[in-house]
């Protein structure tokens, strides 16, 4: 009796493997591009419905079809080197110069504020104060100082993009942990060695976060500058189209402009992948 009870439950010959199906949520099994297309079609579909039933005046909201036709028109003008390409090139120049200026100033100020006690104590409060101001409001001043050419737009673009880079750089310089600092001290490193061989490389992820936020801001700065300060850039084309109630044109110009912004952002991201290579997961490690 006791033998039977204490006897180990011997595996019976016909015991089956415990295999069961784990439920996977539907969205996990859908590729990203399908999910994204779904949202796109819902969006465009809603848009089409709203315009088809004239729930909104066609002057305010063009149909998707009109917008597509206008995008083709604008695209042809751009590819054939028309006046729109000239405008776009002006805006691209503003963005490139503004971003370069923002990187230079932002990086220098970031090191001053993040590395020196003087910068942290005496300069940082002013930077915070200026950062809280609505920077767009400075546009008329830049126009008054630098004129209606691209200089005033470059200045506004740089002005907006500088602060995230300052903050990113300063935060990056504080990212190194206590052990790394102690290690460099025990190795007898100079301040410059500690800065360039340890603190800056350690802070690169934060610096790039600042650069990405700056890249978005620089675009906004250039276009705002063109809205408020005239000139011959892409922003001016948008302003003119809007004043003529040519909403399909406004829509298509904005879409092309966002492509430029996307390219700038992707360039920064590409640079980050190359420079901060250790931050991504490396697959196929030990070759």
């Amino acid at each position, binding site marked *: 009796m006791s033998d039977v009870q204490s006897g180990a439950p011997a595996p019976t010959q016909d015991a089956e493997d415990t295999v069961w199906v784990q439920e996977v949520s539907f969205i996990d099994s859908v590729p990203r591009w399908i999910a994204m297309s779904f949202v796109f079609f819902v969006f465009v579909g809603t848009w089409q419905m709203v315009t088809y039933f004239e729930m909104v005046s066609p002057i305010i909201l063009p149909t998707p079809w009109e917008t597509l036709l206008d995008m083709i028109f604008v695209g042809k003008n751009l590819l054939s080197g028309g006046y729109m390409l000239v405008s776009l090139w002006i805006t691209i120049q503003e963005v490139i110069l503004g971003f370069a200026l923002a990187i230079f100033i932002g990086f220098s100020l970031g090191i001053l504020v993040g590395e020196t006690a003087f910068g942290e104590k005496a300069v940082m409060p002013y930077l915070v104060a200026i950062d809280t101001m609505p920077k767009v409001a400075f546009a008329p001043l830049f126009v008054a100082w630098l004129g209606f050419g691209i200089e005033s737009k470059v200045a506004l673009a740089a002005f907006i993009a500088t602060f995230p880079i300052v903050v990113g750089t300063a935060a990056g310089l504080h990212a190194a942990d206590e*052990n790394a600092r*102690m290690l*460099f001290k025990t*190795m*007898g490193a100079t301040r410059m*060695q500690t800065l360039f061989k340890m603190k800056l490389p350690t802070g690169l992820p934060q610096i790039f976060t600042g650069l990405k936020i700056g890249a978005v801001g620089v675009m906004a700065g250039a276009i705002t500058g063109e809205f408020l300060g005239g000139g011959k850039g892409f922003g001016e084309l948008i302003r003119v189209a809007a004043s003529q109630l040519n909403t399909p044109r406004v829509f298509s110009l904005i879409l092309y402009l966002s492509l430029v912004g996307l390219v700038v952002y992707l360039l920064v991201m590409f640079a980050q992948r190359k420079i901060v290579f250790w931050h991504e997961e490396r697959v196929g490690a030990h070759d």
Partner: protein
Amino acid sequence: MNTVAVENSGSPLGEPVYQLSNVSKTYARNLVVALESVDLTLTKGSFTSVIGSSGCGKSTLLKIMAGLIPPSKGRVMLQGEPVKGTRRDIGMMFQQATLFPWKTAVENIVLPIEIRDGKAAATKALDKAHELLEIVGLKGFENVYPNELSGGMAQRASICRMLITEPAVLLLDEPFSALDELSRDMMNMELQRICREQDATAFLVTHSIQEAVILSDEIVVMKPRPGRVAEIVKVDLPRPRTLDMMTTPKFGEIVDYIRGLLDKGEGM
């Protein structure tokens, strides 16, 4: 090699390498006595551990020995020279491996040379770094980046970085406490082997009594408020130590004795 092994068995009586006499540290700002008249001598090739509850001043002691902070009183002498700031004959290791992810294992290891003597000297030291990697069992991982190394492997690499400048004394600040217990035991045995091969003088800060006993010739038991040395316990287990020794009655006796000393400190 044999003679070294014989000399090292039992309590070594080599020449003194690191000497502290009457070392105190008071933090003036809040009048806290972090360390009160510590006397300590590390002899060549010896392994010394310091153990004590938090606030007993062991990290302060380690920082003073590393030349990171000055003592308020007392003499700190390494190889006959007073320690006034960090020195290249001091090697240090922390709880975290602190390898830099933008450098390969071997580049991390020659970093102390790069900092002190420049890039050219660092390139010359690469051969030696390869040898050290082989000693710690990381042959083949020379050009691997740190985020591809496991915690134990990273600590092995940081041992190499500590050894590359051939320091006279190794200061180890709980080097393996972030590892799981199995890797930790293994790394401790590795550490013992490396110290014997290099005839290194080591000073270990630890929270684990077992770890202190299995590795050390002498254990400095410290008490808090004010931080001071309660007793220096000699461990006369034969060398080389093995993990099996942890089950012997003698090992248990020493562990119990030290635990008793620490418990007395708690009541204060």
